[in-house]
């Protein structure tokens, strides 16, 4: 039975362009305090455009209603649990939003004098040092704009060090359970990718690793805990194998929410790690970004970090551009500063002990879900899990219902679906990550929904296969969208 939600009226709304009518306006510019100029003269007549065809003209109240109505068509953490595995959809504290908007923070220009940027630089320095402590690594660059960007930067760092040692090597090893960004980032950094199979426990296969690692291998990219939510038991030994053959250990920090305050990658042999501040450190996903993907490295890799680097010059912070071994820039300016402010606010709010407590609750929540749903869903790997748990649809598949169908049915129950069909090593995966910011009542409600759907699959599989029913948009035809792409509005379409 569906208990968490019932439907209510939802407003229809056309596109901005369809609301437009000539002469409507939502703006008023101040009177010019200087003489107006003729664009045709100052820019050259040939450079001045005619009216922008189809560009909208709407009023302020219509703009507010337009975007408010659109917003109600979205699910959000503020509505409830968002159990997307590997995405760490936790509560986004609102004080973080407030402090990022303080004028001196939000309106700081990246080229304003360093003497008038000390506050921003101090925030970045403090965040760097907190992240170094949390990861057990020596130095942190806050420049990468997102997780995949951090991966690329991290692999470039490894390449730079290996080049300095005389041979950049040719390939990067990636377990078959890895996120798709890992191989794509390694390729951008100029490496061939070799996928390595997991063992029967879904973990790194040490024997295979020992066999594969040779003078051509630059690094192993590993996610730990891996995408099954399982800690790589042999990580220390894996690091030893790699290091003994001159290769490096890269860790994808997507799952750091399982480790903060419990174990530090730098302590178990990791050379480079990227973090997703929009996952572990609670900065909002905003419908797909912005994020931030800092990289943390060992002392040996520090000289290669992107320029500029913060340095202390007397009592002041300064930007150091003069770093000959640096890989260069991975983006303009210094990073997604507004995101960094929010992440530091999160770390300050929790403090050292609080961060560890958050990790404990995240792992407790995932284990509670595992225990509660194990009677109803197949658990392909029995290893103890940390912050997330991965089931398969093996039992439901017998009734013709797949993980994607169960996910869509979950929408009717008032939840965002879990991560569907990932990791690829599980047939029909249901990847569930509750995070620590779910209370027992919300978890019980989710468990109740999943249990109820499991029963529906037995009684009436078709009911689940045609879901969702209660939302304003029923199942979307993604195949048609790709077959004949319509990627912009035009009059009449």
């Amino acid at each position, binding site marked *: 039975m569906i208990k968490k939600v019932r439907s209510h009226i939802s407003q229809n709304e056309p596109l901005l362009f369809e609301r437009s009518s000539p002469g409507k*306006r939502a*703006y008023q510019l101040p009177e010019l305090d200087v003489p107006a100029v003729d*664009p045709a003269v100052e820019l050259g007549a040939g*450079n*001045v455009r005619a009216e*922008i065809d189809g*560009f909208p003209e709407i009023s302020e109240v219509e703009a*507010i209603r337009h*975007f408010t109505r659109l917003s109600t*068509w*979205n*699910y959000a*953490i503020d509505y409830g649990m968002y159990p997307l595995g590997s995405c760490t959809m*936790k509560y986004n504290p609102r004080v973080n939003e407030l*402090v990022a*908007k303080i004028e001196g*923070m*939000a*309106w*700081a*220009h*990246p*080229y304003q004098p360093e003497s008038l*940027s000390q506050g921003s630089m101090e925030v970045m320095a403090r965040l760097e040092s907190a992240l170094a402590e949390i990861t057990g690594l020596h130095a942190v660059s806050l420049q990468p*704009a*997102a997780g*995949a960007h951090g991966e690329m930067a991290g692999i470039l760092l490894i390449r730079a060090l290996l080049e300095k040692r005389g041979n950049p090597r040719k390939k990067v090893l990636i377990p078959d359970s890895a996120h798709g960004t890992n*191989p*794509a980032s390694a390729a*951008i950094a100029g490496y061939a990718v070799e996928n390595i199979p997991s063992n029967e426990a879904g973990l790194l296969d040490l024997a295979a690793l020992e066999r594969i690692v040779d003078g051509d291998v630059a690094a192993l990219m590993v996610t730990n805990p891996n995408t099954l939510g399982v800690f790589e038991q042999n990580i220390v030994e894996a690091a030893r194998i790699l290091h003994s053959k001159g290769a490096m250990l890269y860790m994808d920090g997507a799952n750091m929410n399982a480790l903060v*305050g419990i174990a530090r990658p730098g302590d178990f042999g990791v050379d480079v790690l990227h973090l997703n501040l929009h996952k572990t450190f609670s900065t*909002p*996903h905003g*419908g*797909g*970004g912005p994020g931030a993907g800092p990289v943390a490295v060992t002392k040996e890799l520090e000289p290669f970090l992107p320029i500029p680097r913060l340095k202390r010059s007397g009592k002041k912070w300064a930007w150091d551009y003069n770093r000959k071994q640096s890989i*260069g820039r991975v983006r*303009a300016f210094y*990073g997604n500063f*507004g995101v960094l402010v929010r992440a530091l606010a999160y770390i*300050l709010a929790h*403090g050292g002990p609080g961060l560890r407590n*958050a990790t*404990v*609750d995240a792992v*407790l929540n995932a*284990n509670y879900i595992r225990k509660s749903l194990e009677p109803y869903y197949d658990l392909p790997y029995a290893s103890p899990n940390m912050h997330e748990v991965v089931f398969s649809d093996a039992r439901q598949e017998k009734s013709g219902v797949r993980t994607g169908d169960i996910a869509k049915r979950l929408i009717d129950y008032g939840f*965002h679906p879990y991560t569907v069909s990932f990791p690829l090593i599980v047939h029909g995966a249901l990847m569930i990550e509750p995070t620590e910011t*779910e209370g027992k009542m919300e978890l019980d409600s989710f468990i109740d929904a999943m249990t109820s759907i499991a029963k529906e699959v037995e009684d009436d599989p078709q009911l689940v296969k045609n879901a*969702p029913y209660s*939302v304003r*948009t029923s199942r*979307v*035809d993604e195949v048609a969208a*790709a077959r004949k*792409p*319509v*990627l*912009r*509005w035009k009059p009449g379409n």
Partner: protein
Amino acid sequence: MRYLPKSDSERRQMLDACGTGSADDLFAHLPPEVRLNRPLDLPPGISEYEIIEYFTARAAENANGYPSFLGAGVYHHFRPVIVDTVVSRGEFLTSYTPYQAEISQGILTSIFEFQTMMCQLTGMDVANASMYDGSTALPEAAMMAARVTGKGKVVVARSVHPEYREVLQTYAKRQGMPVEEFGYVPDAGVIDLEDLERKIDGLTAAVVVQSPNFFGVIDQVKAAGEIAHRHGALLILVFTEAVSLGLLEPSPEVDIVAGEVQSFAISPSYGGPFAGVIATREKYIRQMPGRLVGQTVDSRGNRAFCLTLATREQHIRRERATSNICTNQALVALMATVFLSVYGKQGLRELAEQNLAKAHYLAGRLKPRFSGKFFNEFAVRTEGKKPDAVNRELLKKKIVGGLPLGRFYPELADSLLLCATEMSRRADMDAVAEALA
């Protein structure tokens, strides 16, 4: 802890349900050698009040309330109030990437509107859902041009933002893409077409120009395009000052646009987060990086939107993807979309005209270094004084001056790059003119 919504008795119940004695037992399976056997060396957590106090104090160490004449890729424009009203809504702020289209129509619709407006502004057929920023959009556009042409060399104008060129170098080096730079005409500040002719060859995949360029000058996009096409290369156009699109005619010679939309209501925020965009011709859609939203229908026949053409992307194609980019900048793109809906067709033009008028007022009191036509930014020689000295003088009047160009162009060590927008007051511009007198 206020963000952890459980009582101790609830934790106890949950541990019991798991058959676990204590919370620590949940970690018992970790190898002992990986465990951190001490507390993190970070101070204890603090209250909301103290957090606000801390950041307010840091903000006070930055420039506050200074009129500024800095542009150089980051512009100070007014931010209509409803931009914050909209993006503060939890339904936008706290939602994930819209993979589940049925419950993500809000953000999907807004991205479709963003893509449409980017096409309208750039004159392109298709625009993506946004990139990290303009500086990373550029190498992505260059790699795209390499895929389209099957060639690898990139020829980039020195009048393209210097930090964008540095980012291009970082990416290109690892892609085996040689990057060669060509110069600008010293008097006019526009690209040197003869130098471009010298540097371009049959192996060139792309020519990159920026307009308005880093010096604020409207550049010779059409001429660059003709040269590029004659050599079988694509023309990539960079823009950093998006408000200029309200007045400037898009050039039909452009094959790929790699731009930055920070000017559309994105606060400077010490350099980010911003949002880039890649726009191009229909025929190159399948070589585009980044996410795309497309229109379709739901099972009841209603119009609906979803992420599409994902077979280009890393989660499907892994190492053979068009890019490693995973996130876009949806919330930032939403800010731009709200901004553009507020200004609309007339407002964006008026806004651009005000920028033009302000910059030309300031320039009228000075002598721009370059003769090329400019939008809201221009270079000026600091006759007899060092640019830094002029800026120091202005700082005493609580004004942030321009960017000393010598930082990026040794040959322009005697020049400042000044930007005036609709936010620049006449009195402050007069003060700048006096300092430069």
